[in-house]
C-alpha cells in the first residue's frame, strides 16, 4: 500500500520534470493503473471495492492514455512540453507542495482513519501538481493531462472515505472525468484546426 503511494509520488515528480509529451501520457497511464490497484490494496477483495478499482483502472489506466495518444497523433505537434516554469523549479515546487500537504492534511477531519497516513497528503499533492501543470505549461494537450492528474488526486482522496461514500459518488466522479476528457479531446481538435497549433498563447486572440 505505502509502496504504491510512494510510486505515485515519484510519478508526480516525473510529470513535473519530464519534457516529452508521450512520456507524460505514459506516466499518467501508470498512475491510473496504480490508482486502480490502490483500493484493492487498501480494502481487500470485496465486491464493491473490486468494482471501483477495476473500473478506475480501465478508465484511467487504459482509455484515457489511449485517447490522449490519439489526440497527440492527430494533432501532429512537436513533442516538447514547452514549460512556462522551468523543469528544475517545477520539481522544487513539487517537493514544497508535498511538504505543505503533509502539514496541512494532518488537521483535516475525516469520518474514519484512512488506510494509510500517506494517502491524504499524496492525494493533495496530486491535486496541486495537476493544477500546477495546467498553469505552468503552454500546450493545451499538457493542460488536459494536468486536469487528469488533478482528477486522479480527487479519486485518491475519495479512496480515503471509500467505505463511507456510496458507490454512486465514485461512479459519478469517474463519469465526470470521462466526459471531461471527451470534451477536451474535441476542444483540442478544434483548437488545433483553427490555430494550427496547440499552444494556448494563441488563444489570447479570442479575447474581444
Amino acid at each position, binding site marked *: 500500500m505505502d509502496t504504491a503511494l510512494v510510486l505515485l509520488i515519484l510519478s508526480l515528480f516525473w510529470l513535473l520534470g519530464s519534457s516529452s509529451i508521450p512520456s507524460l501520457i505514459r506516466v499518467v497511464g501508470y498512475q491510473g493503473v496504480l490508482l486502480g490497484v490502490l483500493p484493492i490494496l487498501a480494502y481487500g477483495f470485496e465486491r464493491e471495492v473490486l468494482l471501483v478499482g477495476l473500473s478506475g483502472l480501465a478508465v484511467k489506466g487504459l482509455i484515457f492514455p489511449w485517447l490522449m495518444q490519439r489526440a497527440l497523433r492527430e494533432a501532429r505537434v512537436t513533442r516538447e512540453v514547452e514549460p*512556462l516554469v522551468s523543469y528544475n523549479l517545477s520539481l522544487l515546487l513539487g517537493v514544497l507542495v508535498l511538504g505543505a500537504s503533509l502539514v*496541512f492534511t494532518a488537521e483535516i477531519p475525516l469520518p474514519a482513519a484512512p488506510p494509510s497516513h500517506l494517502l491524504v497528503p499524496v492525494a493533495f499533492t496530486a491535486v496541486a501538481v495537476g*493544477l500546477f501543470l*495546467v498553469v505552468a505549461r503552454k500546450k*493545451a494537450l499538457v493542460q488536459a493531462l494536468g486536469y487528469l492528474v488533478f482528477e486522479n488526486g480527487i479519486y485518491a482522496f475519495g479512496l480515503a472515505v471509500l467505505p463511507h461514500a456510496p458507490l454512486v459518488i465514485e461512479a459519478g466522479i469517474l463519469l465526470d472525468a470521462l466526459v471531461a476528457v471527451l470534451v477536451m479531446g474535441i476542444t483540442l481538435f478544434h483548437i488545433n484546426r483553427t490555430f494550427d497549433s496547440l499552444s494556448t498563447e494563441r488563444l489570447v486572440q479570442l479575447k474581444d
Partner: protein
Amino acid sequence: MNEVLTGLVILVVGGLATLFLNHRWVALVTAAAGFLTILQGCGLVLALQTPQSLELPWAVPGGSFSLVLDPLAAFFLAPAALLGILASIYAVGYFPRPGRRSTWFFLHLMMAALGLVLLARNGVLFLVAWEVMALASFFLVTSEDEQRQVRQAGWIYLVATHLGSFFLIAFFAIAPDFGQSGVGPVAFVLALIGFGSKAGLVPLHIWLPEAHPVAPSPVSALLSGVVINTGIYGLMRVLSHPPEHARAIGWTLLLVGAITALTGVLFALAQRDLKGLLAYSSVENMGLVCLGLGLGLLGQPLATAAAMLHLLSHGLLKSLLFLAAGSVLHQTHTRDLEEMGGLLRRMPLTGLAFLVGAAGLAGLPPLGGFITELLLLLCAVQAMQHNLLAGLVTLLTVALVAGLALAAFTKAFGIAFLGEPRSQRAARAHDPGPLMLTPMALLALGALGLAAGTPWLLSRTYPEQSAVLASLLSFTGLVVALAAALYALRSQLLKTRPVGAAPTWGCGYLAPSTRMEYTGLSFSQPLTDLFASVLHHRVHQPRMEPIFPAEETFSDETPDLFEDEVYRPMLEGLVRLSGLLRRLQHGRVQFYVLYVLVTLVGLLAWGQL
C-alpha cells in the same frame, strides 16, 4: 374555492392542449370554460362575503400551499376572468392563422398564474406564481419578436419585472405572513418598490409604455386591464391590516400617486403612438388609484372605495380601448397616429367603442372615470377640513390630471378617427368581423352598466355621496337620452328629403390635401410646450436659412424623462464599472486556472487559521 381552482386547472390544461392541437376553438372553449368556472367561484364569495381557504401539502422549504379566496381577491379575480373571456373571443378573430402555437399557451398560463397570485397566502407560493405570470407575459410581449423594437421592449420588461421580484423576495423575507399583521416602514418600502414596479408607478414605470404597445392587442388589453392591477392588489393586501406609521405611508402613497398620475398623463399627451398613449394613460390611472389609497390611509375611507372603483372601471375601459386600437392596428397596420385619420366614417362601430372608452377615461359623465374622479374630489374637499395639505394636493392633482387626460383622449380620438385619412391604408380600413366587435360592444355596455350601478354599490356605505351621484348620473343620462332622441328625430326628418354633401369651405383654396390637417403634434403642442420643462420634447425643425432652402425634414420625439435622465446615466456608470473587471479577462488560460489555484490555496490557508 373549488370552482376557482378547477377553473385554473382547466386553463392550464387548455393551454397545454393548444400546444398540441393548434386550434383556436380549442383555446377559446377551454378559456371560456375556465374563466366561467372562476367567475362562478368569485361570485359566490362576493355574494356571501365570507372567505374560503384551502391547504394542500407542498414539500418546499419555507413554503405552504395555502390558498384563500376572500372578497378582496375575488374583487380582483372576477373582472380578470370576465376580461379574460372577452379578450379570448377577440383574440380568435385577431391572431393570424395559423398563429404561433405558444401564444395561446402563454395567454392561458399567464391568466392561471394571475389567479394563483391572487389566491396565494404564502410568500414562496406567491413568488412562484408571480414569476410564472411575469415570464408568461414576457413571452406574450415578445410574440412578434421579428421586430427589433419588440425584442428591446421585451428585455426592458424582463429586467424591470425581475428588479421588482428582487424587492418582493426581500419583502417576503421580512414580512412572511403577507398582510396578516401591520407592516413596518422597511417592509412597506420594499413592497412599494416591488409591487409598484408591476403597477407602473413612477419612476418604475418605464417598462410599461415600452412593453404594452408592442404586445398583440388582446394581450395589451389584458396586461393593462388586469395584470398591472396585481401590483395594486399586492399593495392593498399588504395594507389590509393597519400598518405602523399609517400617516407617513399614506403621504408616501399620495405623493407617489400624484407624481405618477401627472407624469403619465403628460407623456400620454405627447405620444404619437396610439397604443403608447394608452399605455401612458395606464400609468396615469394607476397613479390615481395609488393616490386614492394614500388619501384613504389619511382618514378618508371613501377615497379607498373610489380607488377600487377606479381600478374596476379603468380595467374595463382600458381593455376596451386596447381592443379598439387593436382593430385599428389590424386594418391600418400602424400604431402611428399621424398615419390614421377619418376612421370613424370607415369603422363606425370600432370608432364608437373607442369613443366610449376615451370618454370614460377622460372623465366625461356618465362613465367610470367621471364618477371616481368626482368621488376623489369630494374626498379631497372633506380632507381639507382637517388635513389641508393632503386635500389640496389631491384636489389640484385630480383636477389637472382630468383636464390633461381630456386633452390626451381628444387627441387620440380626434386624430385617429376624425378628419380625412392620412394614408392609403387608413383610407381602405373597415370594421372587423363580429368576433372582434362583440367583445368591444360587451365591454362598452359593461362600462356603462358599471357607471349606472355605482350609486347602488355605494348606497349602503355612503348614502349621502351615493345620492349626489345618482342625481348627477340621472341628469347626464337624461341629457344623453335627449341628444339621442334629437338625433333620431333629425334622421327621421331627413329620411324623406334630399341631403346634399359638399366639401367644407376652404377659404377659397382649391386643392386642399390631407397634409394640411391638424396633426397629433400640432394638436398637443400648446400643452406640451407649457410642460416643456418635464417633457423634454425634441423637435427637429427645418431651417429656412438660405434664400433657396434645400429639402428638409421635420421630426419630433418625446423620450421618457426617467429613461433618459435617470436610468441611462445609471446604466452607463454600471457598464463603465464593469469594464474594470475586463482586465481580469486577458485570454491566458493558464492565468484563469491560476485564479482558481490561488483561491483554493487561500481558502486552505484561511481554514488553517
